[in-house]
């Protein structure tokens, strides 16, 4: 019983991290209709920014975290203005933009490997303090991971409901051509989406890098988990992404317990195929009307 509860707690923490990553992916996919593969590259970049500031430049953790967020915002702005926006201006198809995004991811991955090597880099080699409640173990970094990521997810969810800019950004995915027609600043809204997506990937990426270290080839696996959570929860439902993330993380934990750690990746894709086949609109997504299909 204790083991099951322990796995549920681990699943909740992991779910909060995946929820943030799902938002980072989902926002771009929902609003700009870009399958944002470069997000995997952004994940790695964040990890190495944080590693550079903490382990190489020996800055204090809060300052390093602030600088990492800033550097990620700049990287996101460069990505939007040098890659995504020029393609959007040329009205390129989503397939072309996806390929470009994949290219960015590969460039980032290889550049990092060239600069830092392919081996694991640990930001902190000290053991994290562990708190034990009734036999259940939670480390300090796990608490931070849960509190920071879950709060960021909830706050952004509320902003998307209330803030007019976010409302426009959300609507842009359905009618992108209406934004300039209505006199709204298209480029600014795009920049806003990319900036928020960059921040939302920066939080879990920096925390994970601090927790377990970073290497240049982990981006794709996190990207896949995030994208599966979005499709699982429902592309059009912000809260669905979070639900998808938590269920996915819990499933992974339970599979690890009942079967073996080797099946954890597989369960992610079984869920994805199951959803795409039987509930394409996602767990809490609304089914489309016949004329919309």
């Amino acid at each position: 019983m204790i083991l099951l509860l322990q796995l549920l707690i681990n699943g909740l923490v992991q779910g909060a991290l995946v929820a943030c990553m799902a938002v980072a992916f989902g926002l771009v996919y929902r609003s700009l209709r870009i399958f944002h593969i470069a997000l995997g590259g952004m994940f790695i970049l964040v990890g190495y920014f944080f590693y550079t500031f903490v382990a190489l430049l020996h800055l204090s953790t809060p300052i390093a975290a602030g600088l990492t967020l800033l550097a990620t915002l700049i990287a996101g702005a460069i990505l939007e203005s040098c890659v995504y926006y020029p393609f959007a201006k040329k009205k390129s198809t989503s397939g072309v933009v996806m390929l470009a995004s994949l290219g960015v991811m590969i460039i980032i991955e290889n550049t990092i490997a060239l600069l830092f090597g392919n081996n694991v880099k640990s930001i902190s080699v000290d053991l994290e303090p562990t708190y034990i409640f009734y036999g259940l173990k939670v480390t300090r970094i796990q608490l931070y991971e849960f509190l920071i990521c879950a709060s960021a997810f909830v706050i952004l969810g509320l902003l998307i409901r209330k803030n007019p800019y976010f409302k426009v950004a959300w609507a842009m995915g359905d009618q992108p051509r209406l934004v300039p027609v209505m006199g709204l600043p298209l480029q600014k809204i795009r920049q806003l989406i990319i900036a928020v997506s960059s921040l939302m990937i920066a939080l879990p990426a920096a925390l994970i890098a601090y927790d377990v270290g970073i290497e240049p080839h982990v981006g794709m696996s996190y990207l896949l988990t995030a994208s599966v959570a979005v499709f699982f929860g429902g592309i059009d439902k912000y809260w669905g992404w979070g639900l998808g993330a938590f269920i996915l993380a819990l499933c992974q934990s339970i599979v690890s317990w009942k079967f073996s750690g080797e099946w954890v990746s597989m369960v992610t894709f079984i869920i994805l195929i199951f959803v795409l086949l039987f509930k394409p609109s996602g767990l809490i997504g609304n089914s489309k009307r016949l004329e919309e299909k």
Partner: protein
Amino acid sequence: MKKIIVGLCIVVLIAVFGGRALWLYQHRETDTNVVKIGALVPTSGFMAFEGKNVVSALNLLAEKMNAKRDVKIKVIYEDDKYTSKDSVSAFRKLQSQGVDLYFVYGDLPAKAIVSIAQEQKLPLFAMAESKELNDSPVVVNLSPSSTDWTDSIFSFVNEMLKPQNVVIVHQKDMAHVESTKRLKDKFKDTVQVINSEQFDPNVMEVRPLVSKVLSYKPDVVIVLGYGSTYTAILNTLREQGFTGTIVSDPNVSSIKHELAKTPYPLYWTDTLFDDNTDIPEIKEFLAEFKEKFGKKPSTFTMMSYVGAQALMNAIQTAEYKPMDIYNNIQQTKDLKTVLGPVTIDKNKWMKLPIVIKQLQPDGTAKIVKE
């Protein structure tokens, strides 16, 4: 006047290029005095870090050998990216360049090309651990087998730690599955409880797995693998409160500075190589390597260097015919190398001194069993 200048320029150009061509012709390396070794090494992809070190080690050795002898060794590298598909195309590319011998780094590339090499009777010198490779009549393995590493772990754990409850956590690849199976078979008679768990190297969240491992209440956990998930498992075991003994494989040597410092024991099986060693031969090699390449070699760099040293020694004593070299290398016995005396056994495996090391509080290693 203009015509004379142009004419003079043409004469000068012909003299310069003609002279250079003549010099190159006179100093050309004929096929008879160059042995071409085709090396399949991952210089890009996730294993590039090791691959680049292996290239440095082979270059250093070839340079030393070429300075001493009339017959030169030329190493031609192809990047196999540590994938089966790229290994086969890299191998074909090497074949088209008239390579005499093939050196391959790692289990996966070796397995990808072994059937082609066998079909065409091309000798293959592998730096791999999996024992199934050695069934091929064209393969000689230039690194200790997974059996050697596994047996050294078993004898250490069994004799020195005498545990009652052991859990083996291993990566899901052929070599580690083989090692786990062997360990479980060996522990069957001496340990009361033995469990094993596999991990997927693409999954970084290892806490569920570690929680499950700790639920068995082991006194010894043996962790076999490499990469970031492997490192995370080693650290998370301690973070989750495991105070027993952790035993692991030679991959610890390259990540020992990334591991959490705890008062609890961590041992691993390794070669004599260490970057803080007192052994003069290794110290000398370290200094030479650092001066030339500006970095420290890893355990696997050293093993590649020693493996290639056995190969080049066999080239010296055979008459530069590939199958002679293949036969000759199998006669290697107590060859003096930086990692101690090296022998190729009757199963075509390299045998070299294997030790058990313990991680010290300052992050260095100490040999506890030879």
